[in-house]
């Protein structure tokens, strides 16, 4: 079938401005977009720049924007892409959140690898066994393998709502990579890692909006991995004080009353002794108070009828964790 592809192109001469160039190839719709791009480069236009390596979805090199959405080109079938295309032309461009290098190539060093390195994703072993391999449960291995099936394709980062406003955020790909080290029982630096990952731009800047999980082509569920990091950090009290207060207060409120006491949460998040933080709450509280958009003061907070049962659930969970 005839496949029309419009590619956003830019290079040094265009001063970073993209121009759209249309190509037409004759190809089976069952073929992939990467196959199509290779055909264009080989037969029609050797000046077209794009990345691609394994061609099977294992290396993560050929990520780009297809019809407005992030996609891995070697796992995108031409026929399907054509169906989703406006006017019967597949629109292809570089990844949107990364800096463009040329045509479909982007600045991978800053987009992927600097952050990958920043989480220090290697295992620093505890004292290895005297002989042979470490004994590890297969369940742990399977969980880590799911995480390690990440190819650093960057689609989760591309979909991330925080990276849109702050490019310095570590992002779901790097945080998922961090999970790999934090949850590897052979690693010796768990507490230190959780501290480092709790720095500004780290795991607490994630809004857990599930965009990352939606966009991950390998079903790694990056959002769930970040949740797991949060849980672990809270248990280890490794987060920034304000965040730990926030989480602890949230849990304490639910444990005590069965539900959330927002006024208490706000105050405890800042910390009772943090006068400056508490002062900051005041304008909102006063403004909201005047308007009537304000929670009850926590002294008046009522227990829910089933609160004691919820408290029991908490106690059992805490016992299980011990």
């Amino acid at each position, binding site marked *: 079938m005839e496949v029309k592809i419009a590619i956003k192109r830019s*290079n*040094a001469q265009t001063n970073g401005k993209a121009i759209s160039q249309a190509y037409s190839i004759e190809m089976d719709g*069952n073929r*992939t977009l990467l196959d199509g791009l*290779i055909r264009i*480069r*080989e*037969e029609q*236009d*050797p*000046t077209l*720049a*794009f*990345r*691609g*390596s*394994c*061609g*099977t*979805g*294992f*290396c*993560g*090199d050929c990520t780009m924007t297809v019809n407005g959405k992030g996609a891995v080109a070697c*796992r995108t*079938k031409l026929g399907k892409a054509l169906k989703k295309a406006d006017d019967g032309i597949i629109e292809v461009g570089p990844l949107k959140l990364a800096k463009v*290098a*040329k*045509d479909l*190539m982007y600045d*991978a*060093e800053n987009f992927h*690898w600097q952050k990958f*390195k920043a989480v*220090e*994703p*290697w*295992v*620093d*072993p505890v004292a*290895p066994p005297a002989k*042979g*391999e*470490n*004994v*590890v*449960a*297969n369940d742990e*291995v*399977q969980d*880590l*393998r799911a995480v*390690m*099936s990440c*190819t650093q394709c960057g689609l989760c980062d591309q979909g991330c709502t925080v990276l849109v406003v702050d490019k310095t955020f570590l992002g779901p790909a790097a945080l998922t990579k961090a999970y790999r080290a934090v949850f*590897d029982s*052979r*690693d010796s630096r768990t507490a230190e890692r959780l501290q480092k990952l709790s720095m500004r731009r780290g795991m607490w800047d994630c809004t857990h909006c599930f965009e990352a999980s939606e966009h991950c082509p*390998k*079903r790694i569920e990056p959002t769930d991995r970040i949740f797991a990091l949060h849980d672990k950090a809270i248990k280890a009290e490794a987060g920034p004080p304000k965040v730990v207060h926030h989480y602890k207060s949230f849990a304490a409120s639910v444990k005590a009353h069965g539900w959330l006491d927002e006024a208490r949460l706000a105050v405890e998040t800042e910390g009772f002794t943090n006068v400056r933080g508490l002062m900051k709450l005041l304008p909102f509280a006063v403004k909201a108070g005047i308007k009537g958009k304000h929670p009850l003061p926590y002294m008046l907070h009522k227990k829910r009828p089933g609160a004691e049962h919820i408290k029991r659930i908490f106690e059992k969970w805490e016992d299980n964790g011990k």
Partner: protein
Amino acid sequence: MPQHDVIVIGGGFAGLRAALEARASSADVAVLSKVHPMRSHSSGAHSGVNAALKSGDSWQDHAKDTIEAGAYLCDQKAVEVLCKNASEDVVALERMGVIFNRDSDGRIDVMPFAGSSHPRTCYAGDSAGHVILQVLYEQVLRSQIPTYDEWFVSSILVEDGMCKGVVARELKTGQNHAFYAKAVILATGGLGRVYSPSTCSLTGTADGPALAYRAGAPLVDMEMVQYHPTTLSDRGILITEAARGEGGRLVNKDGDRFMAASDAGAMEMAARDVCSRAVHAEIQEGRGENGNVYLDLRHLDKGRISDRLRETLWLLEDLEDLDPSKDLIPVRPAMHRPIGGVRVDTFGATGLPGLYAAGECASTGAHGANRLGGNSLLDCVVFGRRAGEAAARHSRGATWHPPQESLAIAETAGFNEIASRAPGKDTPGIIRRELGSLMNRKVGILRDEAGLKDAASVLRNLKERHSRLGLRDKDAAYNTDIISAAELGNMLDVAEIIIAAALARRESRGCHYRTDFPQRDDVKWLRRSVATRSTRGPIINSAPVVVTQWNPAERNPAR
């Protein structure tokens, strides 16, 4: 001008393993790779790594299987090194952080693989390659080894009969730089792009063998090109051997398990060369469908498959809308891996002082005429480690002077010459496509003299066209056109050697099957073919096979 004790070319298994070992030996080592290391073809290795870890198995059994699969063309000393070191090197990988599947005791689990007498392949689901590559890269970061990502090496600097570094082009800027080094390790991986289709990534363009050959180091066993029996339809995408290890069956269009005719004992677990020829014959004789036979996994336990073949299932879903618990998988053989490469000893030394090679671009002779599944990753970690160690040792001992500056300038000028030519109708891609198709048709699973001569003559024409090729891309930054042209030059040089070696070997053995000489001939051809460069093209000589304790015998086709 960057300078290091040891420079590793290539960021896949062998390269990263070599770099780690060189670093552990206190050498100042750097990795230079034309793609980011994590984009290396190693990521696409699904299967696993062989090691006789379990009781009842032994390195000797492993060696015997390797040698039988290699049709007795193996260098048995190299086989011994490979198999004796396997357990320790695999355990070392585990300790670095590789997450091999575990048995119920929490120990590394093994699975059966074609051609192996025991279950021996340590695996990580069906993505061992991707997992091991990641862990090696993690360790490279941990060791603070500098990596030059997206740098293309165009030549090796040789002066006074010594390798003194390389010339490389930075993709990002288009700048050429000389890298001086006391030792260089080639770990550039495969040459699959010489064939089309191939299971190899786009990066497998024979760079290492071509660089070494032009620098004066010989190549060996280049006629041995392995076809994998099960690749997905006409896509050149591997369906892992683990699918058969788990009990997958090969059937023809009538649903018959045709492997019974080739090897009723081993059936689908016959060695790769045997299996590929059987599939090829089935299709040729009209019992396939649309050029394929079928891989049948429908009878296998769904839960087990969804764990063990997780990545494969997604691949099939994404690309073919297939569910192997209900559907047959259309497969055919396709070019998979060269068995030959840059001739090296078991420490990766090429014979040119200071130049080492390891992994898929090199050949110690351990794989003979056909490689056992699961031995490829093992080769990379064992021989990669040893090459790293040896190169570091060499860099400490060498009295070394930097080369004359004029040397690098001349090499750079040679590389850039193509940029000054006017573009014509040809592109690197057009020539490559013709090359790939030619090699698959005439230098593939079955070969004969007429076809090979034909191939040699067409190849001369392709080389001639390449020498006139001009570039359309005039950019300095991210000019992939010039890289493609250089890669094509590498592929054409190596293809010429493959054809010459295949013409020379007038027998059938392992991956090399001559329809005009269908028998194995131990009297004349228990010899390895060695290619060296001359002004008139490659010269093929032969060298004896090193035999230690396994005397050449009739091959058990199951192994």
